[in-house]
C-alpha cells in the first residue's frame, strides 16, 4: 500500500480540522481516521508559556524513520505528523498526529504508536516560563513515556 506521508516541523500554528480533512480527501477507501493533538497546558495556572527547542534536520529525519516503521506495521493510506517549535501559550496546539486506514484498530494503533515514539525519540525539548514572570526549568522526561514506547518493542 502506498502511504501518503506528511511531516512538518514548523513554528506556525496548525489547523487540526484542515489536517484531519487532508488525511482522507479525495480518497474513498479510507474507513477510519484517528488523530491526536497535544496542547500546551497552564498546569493549573502555574505556566505562562512553553518554549520548544528542536534539533533541525534530525527532527525531520527521526520522525520520518518512525513513520516508516509505522507503515511497515499497519496498512496506512495516509499519515500526518506536525510538530511545532518556538514559544507556545496554554491552549496552543504543539503536535498533531493523524492516521488513515481502512479499519479503526489500525488507525488507532498507528496513531498511539507515533505519539509514544515522538515523546521519547523526537529531538524536542520543553522549557517552562512561569506565570510569575520567572524562567522555569526544562521539563524532565517521564519514566511513563519510556514505558509507553517500550510497549511497542522499539529497537533503540
Amino acid at each position, binding site marked *: 500500500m502506498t502511504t501518503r506521508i506528511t511531516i512538518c516541523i514548523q513554528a506556525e500554528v496548525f489547523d487540526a480540522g484542515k489536517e484531519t480533512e487532508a488525511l482522507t480527501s479525495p480518497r474513498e477507501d479510507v474507513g477510519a481516521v484517528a488523530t491526536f493533538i497535544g496542547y500546551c497546558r497552564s498546569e493549573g495556572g502555574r505556566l505562562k508559556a512553553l518554549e520548544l527547542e528542536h*534539533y533541525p534536520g534530525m527532527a525531520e529525519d527521526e520522525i520520518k524513520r518512525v513513520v516508516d516503521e509505522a507503515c511497515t506495521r499497519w496498512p496506512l493510506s495516509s499519515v500526518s505528523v506536525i510538530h511545532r517549535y518556538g514559544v507556545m501559550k496554554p491552549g496552543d496546539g504543539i503536535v498533531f498526529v493523524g492516521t488513515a486506514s481502512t479499519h479503526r484498530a489500525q488507525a488507532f494503533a498507528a496513531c498511539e504508536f507515533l505519539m509514544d515514539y515522538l515523546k521519547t525519540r523526537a*529531538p524536542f525539548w520543553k522549557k517552562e516560563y512561569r506565570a510569575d514572570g520567572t524562567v522555569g526549568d526544562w521539563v524532565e522526561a517521564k519514566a511513563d513515556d519510556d514505558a509507553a514506547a517500550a510497549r511497542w518493542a522499539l529497537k533503540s
Partner: protein
Amino acid sequence: MTDIKLVYFAWVRERVGVAEEIIDVPENILTVAALAAWLSQRDEGYASAFENPKLVRAAIDRVHAKPQDVIAGAREIAFFPPMTGG
C-alpha cells in the same frame, strides 16, 4: 586530530555555553562516552553539562547513538537531555 562539529541542545547547551562548535578531537577518543568524558574536562561548563552521563543523550550524524558507539567518521555529534517533545 579530527575536526568534528559538536551541537548541544536544551540544558546541555545552556551549561556548555555554546550551541555548536568545531572541535579537534584526539584520535584516541573512540566512543561517544569517551568524547563526553574528554569534553567534561574542558571547563566548568562542560563539567556541569556532563556531570551525570546517564542524563545526556547523543546522536551521531542525526541518528540516536549509544555511549559505546564509535565516533570514527562522524561529521556531527549532538549532546542533549532526554527528549520531551510531543
